[in-house]
């Protein structure tokens, strides 16, 4: 069921953010910052854009999503749970010995995960392969791949970008979660990317720049990507790391640490 009302989608995004906090708090470790920054993008993908069925997660011809920044698994898991691929209670078992929710996504354990990931820089190549297969079958699938901005320091991303361009994969949509922070600091401090948009444009992508925490802008970008023929699209989504939880916003330290009980309660209060 496609949800179109902005407010309804914003409510879902809040639920997903609560799921992220719940999961990372229960696990006692994980990556809340980058998970929160991409929650709106995942909301629009799974509730407004993608042709998927939680009752039939492996349906042939479905649209596919590759979370290349696999450490943001809590965002994907919370989204899949919200969509009904599995029970929300499972989020409390994130990273637990008996649970299905591994620290990084495992396609063989979690319903709805289209590709295992975790080692950065590999997702766009996978998405290219999926998009090529779809084109060979004229299956009309759309393939989505989310990368982090720090992640595109990996050389394989640019190898893959050339492949997306070579095969004119217009059924492929790359989203860069441009929250401008990585573990050791800001992107500029660690290894600056200068103009991400110009880089992807020069690699042959249709580029769209948006506020990646704005539901309507995200929807519009995906619709433009859908209508763009003959080239892949890269959406450069400016986001806020830790978005939605005041004390986590724009703080590199929240890349990979769990909230204390006090912080957890405070975060949920802000998200309700």
């Amino acid at each position: 069921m496609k949800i179109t009302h902005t407010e309804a989608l914003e409510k879902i995004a809040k639920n997903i953010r609560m799921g992220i906090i719940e999961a990372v708090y229960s696990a006692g470790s994980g990556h809340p910052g980058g998970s929160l920054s991409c929650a709106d993008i995942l909301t629009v993908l799974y509730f407004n854009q993608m042709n998927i069925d939680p009752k039939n997660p492996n349906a042939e011809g479905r649209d596919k999503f590759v979370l290349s920044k696999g450490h943001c698994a809590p965002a994907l898991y919370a989204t899949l749970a919200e969509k009904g691929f599995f029970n929300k209670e499972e989020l409390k078992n994130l990273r637990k010995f008996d649970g299905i929710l591994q620290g990084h996504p495992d396609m063989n354990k979690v319903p709805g995960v289209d590709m295992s990931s975790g080692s950065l820089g590999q997702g766009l190549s996978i998405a290219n392969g999926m998009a090529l297969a779809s084109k060979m079958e004229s299956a009309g699938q759309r393939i989505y791949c989310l990368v982090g901005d720090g992640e595109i320091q990996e050389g394989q991303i640019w190898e893959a970008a050339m492949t997306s361009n070579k095969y004119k994969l217009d059924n492929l949509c790359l989203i860069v979660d441009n929250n401008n922070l990585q573990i050791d600091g800001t992107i500029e401090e660690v290894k600056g990317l200068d103009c991400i948009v110009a880089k992807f444009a020069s690699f042959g992508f249709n580029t769209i720049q948006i506020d990646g925490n704005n539901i309507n802008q995200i929807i519009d970008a995906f619709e433009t990507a859908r209508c763009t023929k003959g080239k892949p699209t890269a959406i450069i989504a400016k986001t806020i790391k830790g978005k939605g939880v005041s004390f986590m916003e724009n703080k590199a330290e929240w890349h990979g640490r769990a909230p204390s009980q006090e912080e957890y309660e405070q975060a949920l209060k802000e998200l309700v």
Partner: protein
Amino acid sequence: MEDKKIATRQSYGEALAQLGEKNKNVVVLDADLSTATKTCIFAKRFPERFFDIGISEQDMMGTAAGLSTSGKIPFASTFAVFAAGRAYDQIRNSICYPNLNVKICATHAGVTVGEDGATHQMLEDIGMMRALPNMTVISPSDATQTKWAVEEISKINGPVYMRLSRLAVPIIYDDNYKFEIGKGIQTGKGTDGTIIATGVCVYEALEAQKELAAEGINVRVIDIHTIKPIDKELIAKCAKETQKIVTVEDHSIVGGLGSAVCEVLAEEYPCKVERLGIKDSFGKSGKPVELMEYYGIDKKAIISKFQNKMLDK
């Protein structure tokens, strides 16, 4: 049959084109080496199912993984040093961990690459690839075996690493030969020792066997074309029956066939094993024949292991 020499990479290219005829899900990827890996034969016949990813092996492995998630059977080829080496993390995390149906067929393995020298002579790939869970590792010894292996690995669901060579070698097996994954092939029943060989070294082992027989030393040869899962039963049985074991491979003695055989025997039937292979060094330029002699993986080296009584019972 000995007069006709064919490199396993050549047989691979031809077999792949035949397989493509039979199975429309087979797709082939290469990284700008299709004339050397011989995937160009497939490319010519099925251009719509061939993807030249360019000089980007990591991207090629990922693309192959993506294709496999949608029901395709990708065969990805490049030189062994770039497949197992450069793209190791992609093979590990994007192919083996999710257990995807990707066939990595790497050519130009070992010192028998020859003149290109050390940077292009992959000597660690068997060790690296057999350490990966879910991976099947195949190392064919001649053109016939390669042809059958291509067919058989397409039938199993899961990642495969097939190690092929540049060097043209004599054909060992005739067309009645049946390839079975995981089953070593025993030639001869001699009880004076067992030579366990793989890849281009199998022919050397068979030649050594003949010359030793002329001297009254009767050994048997096992062709281990499947390094993983390895034929434990046959290896243990031959160790029991002959006591002397010599392994020979165009690969480092660290992690390769010799190591795999030692692992089996340490648990099943501890006995002395002599490992012939590249002894923890890099390769160098030269003619393949010169290099096989220099590194001690040719017929002569094998024979000497049985003549100098080092392995006496």
